[in-house]
């Protein structure tokens, strides 16, 4: 599973790595209610939130 020296041979395979194991709540975005206050932008990981 782990390669010698932990080298990654496949470019961009980070998407396969399930992150967020530390999270206790899962926010659900409701575009209708969004007032573009950008609080979520500050709290969410890069690049989870796009302005449009």
């Amino acid at each position: 599973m782990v390669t010698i020296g932990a080298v990654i041979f496949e470019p961009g395979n980070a998407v396969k790595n399930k992150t967020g194991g530390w999270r206790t709540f899962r926010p659900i975005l409701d575009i209708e209610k969004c007032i573009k206050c950008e609080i979520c932008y500050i709290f969410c990981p890069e690049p989870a939130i796009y302005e449009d």
Partner: protein
Amino acid sequence: MKTIITRGTYAAAEAVRLADVDVVAAYPITPQTECVEKIAEFIANGELNAEYIKAESEHSAISAIIGSSATGARSFTATSSQGLALMHEILYIASGLRLPIVLVNVNRALSAPINIWCDHQDSISERDTGFIQLYVEDNQEILDTIIQAFKIAEDKDVLLPVMVNLDGFILSHTYEPVVLPDEEDVKEYLGVYEPPHYSLNPDKPVTVGPVGVPKYYMEIRKQLNDAINNSVKIIKKVNKEYKKLFGREYGDGLIECYNLDNADTVLVAMGSVCGTVKHVINNLKKEGKDVGLVKVRCYRPFPKKEIKKALKDAENIAVLDKNVCFGFDMGSLGLDINATIKDKKICNYIVGLGGRDIKIEHIKEIINHVEKSKENTTKWIGLNKY
């Protein structure tokens, strides 16, 4: 094959030339400096075709050869004392990335007080970095061990950096006859390094040094621990092969047993002091007394099984240390022997710190002390009133 009279630092440089190293990065420090000076001379004279990087510190030197080794270049650096200490954080990266770098450390005491002379505190302080650590006894062993170090490091079942330790001044600045193997023979023996695990290549990009999240980190560290443990086999194999090809061997590659038959008292030591111990043993033998020596050549991985076997008949075990584990009142080898051998009398002797001479009378004092001693103790030898 020819024999030259040379000093330890030059014997190391000759080994690097014979190993046809591709990249050398270093920063000068006494007593190592002459080693890389000589290598620079070889390159300037066209005797070695290599890239020489004049780094601005040891931290940069080891960093540079991590880069070069990751591209698949055979890479070398040398240092001493504070220089090795400055490399500290990067040493873990060299082993973690599984790069077969060879590092020569010319053993020198650590500051303060500043001291340029020999002891093993510098390399012992890097004990847990994941480097294979070898300690040599004389100038011939310097040359042979550095050549072997590349063979061991680059083995597909090892892929680890190797630190070859030689005693500052006692070996580095002392002239001894050294047999140089033929360049062609060494070339054939080592071959061209072709990384079996990965290499940096713009046509085939890979990610080196990614974050190891908690989900993966432990397995990666276990893999490193397995690799250094398994290297025991390869170190033994290389020692045997080398004997066949070049005519010299050093015990089983891990330890060297000297006069163990009939010896109730056995000394355990590393580095150049083993020469003095052997001299004392030879003289005592003439007087009808048998004392033995176990020379620990490979300190990491620690050859527990071999040492246990070598010391099975010993009654009085005296472990010599040129380092101190402050706050434990023992040296590092003393601690390891105590952890390896149970139910035997083991005394630990702190000797030769900061270049303090270890004389014949000191070795005799150690033999007398361990034989008379009723329990395990630690004693500093050659200590003046303070």
